């Protein structure tokens, strides 16, 4: 392909002539055509005959730098993920102290998770859906809801206060740090701390009994509501600071001229919050909701250290604080490991997470605003 470049003559030095192209830096070869006018050489047209430009391919270094990530991802994320799916369809469990070799057994693991042999005083029946495994999913969602609703409300309120330009809170940094602090402590410590405070002879329990807030015989550890309420509170307490910081960042991203315009129009703080802040911070809210749901479904550390049976690891009382991941661990690493069953429950957890995330995405999707007024069209086209 021949390409022509128009070379303005003032770019040429007097003696340069052809060698300017021979020295060309970019490996461009071509010939010169002169355009003459009555004033002499006016323009030189360079006809490029070949463009053997040496390309320095910086793009490939990007890929080199990505290799470690992909290696780690393939080895420690993708492979276990696919292997879990494989395991959920095979029988792989310990029988008489020996692990069986994986044997394909279709959907039997899922059947074992979704149904369970329940014994009563009369005998035993196979129960569907009302199984311990599915109860663990229900309890996990319950704990997550107990923690998330107050968390998002308080975080929004605090974020709105901290970003309010008319209030201008003093010492904001100190407050933010204080509210974020619980997130820095490890979940294990918080769990143990709350256990000490709320156990039957813990100071808070005794104080509550003394002022008559709870009855003398009440024991948080023996009450399902007490235990999961406390676990929900711990999650809330740990994470509201974090959510608040994210929401503050989201609100600060909103164009301040919108607020200024609203103030000029005489909008109240409440109106500003509901008409400007809330609609515009929605993508951030969506992000918080989805990440919190994923994290909440995988809740493990706090409940497993708070009120769980020492020998079996089952969340007490009556499995109320037994979350899905705890149940998976009990299946996979209990007295008689059953990897197939654990993998099946993991897959069910995966599907649940996927469904819940999709529902949240759909529910918080931005819709085009409804037209409230007729739009006057310019000109009389009708």
């Amino acid at each position, binding site marked *: 392909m021949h390409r022509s470049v128009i070379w303005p003559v003032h770019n040429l030095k007097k003696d340069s002539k052809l060698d300017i192209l021979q020295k060309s830096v970019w490996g461009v070869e071509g010939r010169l055509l002169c355009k003459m006018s009555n004033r002499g050489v006016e323009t030189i047209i360079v006809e490029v005959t070949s463009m053997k430009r040496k390309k320095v391919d910086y793009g490939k270094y990007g890929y080199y730098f990505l290799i470690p990530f992909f290696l780690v991802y393939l080895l420690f994320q993708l492979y276990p993920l696919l292997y879990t799916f494989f395991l959920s369809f095979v029988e792989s469990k310990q029988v008489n102290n020996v692990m069986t070799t994986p044997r394909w057994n279709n959907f039997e693991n899922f059947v074992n998770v979704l149904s369970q042999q329940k014994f009563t005083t009369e005998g035993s029946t196979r129960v569907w859906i009302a199984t311990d495994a599915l109860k663990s999913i229900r309890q996990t969602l319950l704990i997550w809801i107990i923690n998330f609703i107050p968390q998002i409300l308080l975080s929004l309120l605090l974020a709105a206060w901290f970003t309010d330009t008319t209030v201008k809170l003093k010492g904001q940094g100190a407050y933010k740090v204080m509210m974020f602090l619980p997130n820095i402590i490890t979940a294990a410590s918080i769990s143990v701390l709350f256990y000490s405070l709320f156990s039957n002879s813990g100071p808070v329990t005794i104080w509550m009994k003394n002022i008559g807030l709870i009855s003398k015989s009440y024991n948080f550890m023996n*009450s399902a509501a007490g235990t999961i309420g406390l676990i929900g509170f711990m999650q809330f307490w740990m994470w509201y600071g974090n959510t608040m910081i994210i929401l503050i960042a989201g609100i600060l991203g909103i164009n301040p001229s919108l607020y200024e315009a609203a103030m000029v129009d005489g909008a109240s703080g409440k109106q500003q919050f509901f008409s400007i802040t809330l609609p515009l911070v929605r993508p951030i809210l969506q992000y918080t909701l989805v990440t919190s749901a994923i994290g909440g479904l995988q809740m493990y550390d706090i409940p497993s250290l708070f009120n769980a049976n020492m020998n079996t690891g*089952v969340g007490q009382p009556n499995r109320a604080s037994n979350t899905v991941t705890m149940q998976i661990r009990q299946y996979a690493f209990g007295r008689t490991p059953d990897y197939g069953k654990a993998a099946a429950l993991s897959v069910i957890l995966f599907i649940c997470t996927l469904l819940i995330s999709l529902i949240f995405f759909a529910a918080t999707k931005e819709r085009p605003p409804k037209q409230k007024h007729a739009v006057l069209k310019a000109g009389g086209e009708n």
Partner: protein
Amino acid sequence: MKKFKKAMALSLSLAMGLSLAACGSSSDSTTAAEETTTAATSEASDTTATTEAASDTDTASETEAAAAPEETTGNGEKVYVYSWNSELGGILDNFLFKDYPELKDVVEYENLNQGGTSSEYLTGVTNSMSGDKPASIVAADNDEFKTLEVQDFAAPLSSIGFDDSWYNGAFQYTIDFAKNEDGKLMGTAWQATPGVFVYRTDIAEKAGLGSTPEEVQENVKDWDAFEASAKKVKDAGYYMLSSVNDLERPWLDQRDSAWVVDGALNIDPAVNEYLELTKKYYDAGYFKETQQWTDDWNASMSEDVLGFFGCPWFVTWTLAGNISGTDAFGKYNVIAGPKLDKAWHWGGTYLMTTNKVANPETTAFVIWYLTCNEDFLKRSTTDPSTLNFPNNEKVAQDLADSGDGAIDALGGQNPVQTYIDNVDGIDLSLATNYDTTLNGILEGARDNYDTGELSSVDDVIAEIKTQTQDQITDVTVE
């Protein structure tokens, strides 16, 4: 500047590489040196070992104990000792290595830092068998011993030249327990763990249970008396027991049949009795309702609880540790406790060997030293770092008679004779490798019964069956 940076980077990387290389070569050279020195000693000891082996076979038919093994570094190969905490390592450091410094180079302690009854511990030991440091000696918790005993790596002690008769001085129940189905001795223990009752003298006096151990014992001599006393203690504003779990150990040893019989779940009538008893005590408010092994359970030892079902290690370590520095220190006494149909026990640690022992002679010597050597057992009873109740009848009796067993936390009481009396009749033949899990299932179901989630003992039994079916894949439930 650029050149300087490059030079700097090069020199740094060289330095790192060289230091790595240096590490590698230096450790190589030390092991080489070790090999030469140990090779020399092993040649010397080989002769004694063979003569000993010959003498072992002579005495095997007799009931007399064979001659104790002599200290040896064997063939100089490493002996890896695996355990779950620093206790055994401390014993090696404070006794074995002080007595025989040359064993320091041969015996290596591996602390897995996992719960002794956790599946992680078993996994850790199993993984070691295919690694660089295959276990030669494995510490096994009483609850997990039956599980470890049937693992592929487990081997009878006779396979490393350990003469079973060395262990004759031990309390009989530890010998019976450690024998596998073929009657081979699979492990030995350095301490015995008879169950007793420890109580607060000041609370007993305030509750009117008497001021001497004899009087208090009379007030808790059986379950009827125990219950009557519990009521008195409650009326005086105290609790009889701390956690509901505290009753479990004594009661589970009252069973006449094991948890699992012929691969099927079996629930002994003693379990029903235990459930009814705990429910009765729970409703009456005799428990402080703490949970075993938590902070508030520990703290309750110096608060308002009359007593605990304990054992020697519980008294010297758990109790003494928790009450030291509090008013309760020195105010505890050990008594035999309620007279049960059977004596009971709590815990214990057994030393096992494996099928990948590189240095059998030294391994056998170390196990002998720790569990059969009367000299060590005697010293370990009074050494503040161990304070064992020795698993040796003769040493234990000496300790009781000499009065050396007095314990400060008990206000100078010497509990050893009570321990010895309570060893009589301990029977661990019902142990199965499902016990830890099944005890856990029992506890969960029992709590539901106590709090009213389950309304009858039959419901609890049904719940135990449901949970067993779900959690243990190779036990049938009918």
